[in-house]
């Protein structure tokens, strides 16, 4: 695992994500849009048990990867105010914008949806601008 180039490992990770999204559609007939799935499992859990099962699978999969590959879990060192503000904006924005990197990115771009193409370009641009201002603009 450690001998492979990081680009290749990321590519294989992308394959796993793509295959999981395709399987969701082939098996359950549903778009693997994480934002929608999280929201449904939170607001109407009883009628969306499949959504809860999917959400539970995400950390199980991450745990599986780290324990089998021996790759240590990455550090997460972010000040609490940024955690709260950033987390809140991620939830607010993905819900208002009807999707995130999975629903608009992997699935929506795959469907060549105009809404998703606009959404992906917009959130990529704003993430880039935010990081630029944080690291090179002299603000947090």
């Amino acid at each position, binding site marked *: 695992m450690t001998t492979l180039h990081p*680009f290749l*490992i990321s*590519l294989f*990770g*992308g394959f*796993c994500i*793509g295959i*999981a999204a*395709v*399987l969701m559609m*082939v*098996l*359950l*007939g*549903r*778009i693997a849009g*994480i934002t929608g799935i*999280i929201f449904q499992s*939170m607001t109407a859990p009883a009628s969306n*048990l*499949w959504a809860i099962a*999917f959400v539970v*699978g*995400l*950390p*199980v*999969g*991450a*745990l*599986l990867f780290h324990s089998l590959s021996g790759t240590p879990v*990455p550090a997460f060192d*972010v000040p609490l105010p940024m955690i709260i*503000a*950033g*987390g*809140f*904006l*991620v*939830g*607010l*924005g*993905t*819900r*208002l*914008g009807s999707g995130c990197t999975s629903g608009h*990115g*992997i*699935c*929506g*771009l*795959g469907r060549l949806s105009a*809404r998703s193409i*606009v*959404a992906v370009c*917009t959130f990529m641009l*704003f*993430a*880039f601008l935010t990081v*630029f201002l944080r*690291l090179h603009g002299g603000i947090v």
Partner: protein
Amino acid sequence: MNLVAALACGILFGVGLAMSGMTDIERVIGFFDVFGDWDPSLAFVMGGGLLISLPFFQLVQPKLKRPVIGDIFRMPTRTDIDTRLVGGAALFGIGWGVVGLCPGPVIAALAHLDVDIIWVTLSMLAGMLVADQIDRLLDAGKASRA
């Protein structure tokens, strides 16, 4: 049966997120830091995902009649590009640039057993609930004008 399938898909998705580096904020921020010490590796995640999803949605799925479990394919039907889509995506982008995790990796990173990830998760869920209220207000406003 559908629970087992959904769980299996979630696990594979989670493996992919962890393997690809999407749960590593250093690499996420590095990816967006184009004018700094740019780390392009995460472009391969979207690339790898699309190499699978694009041919599937364009070539394979139109030939399928129904999913293996369940009756119909639930496809998004909206095609309008409105302020909510663009504004929401912009807010999400800002949040992603601040906290370094998008929704899938937030949940996957709960496996790190780090209290801070629980705070990200709760903040994100709060954001989603507030967005839902804003959605209702905007929809009610639209209905009353119509």
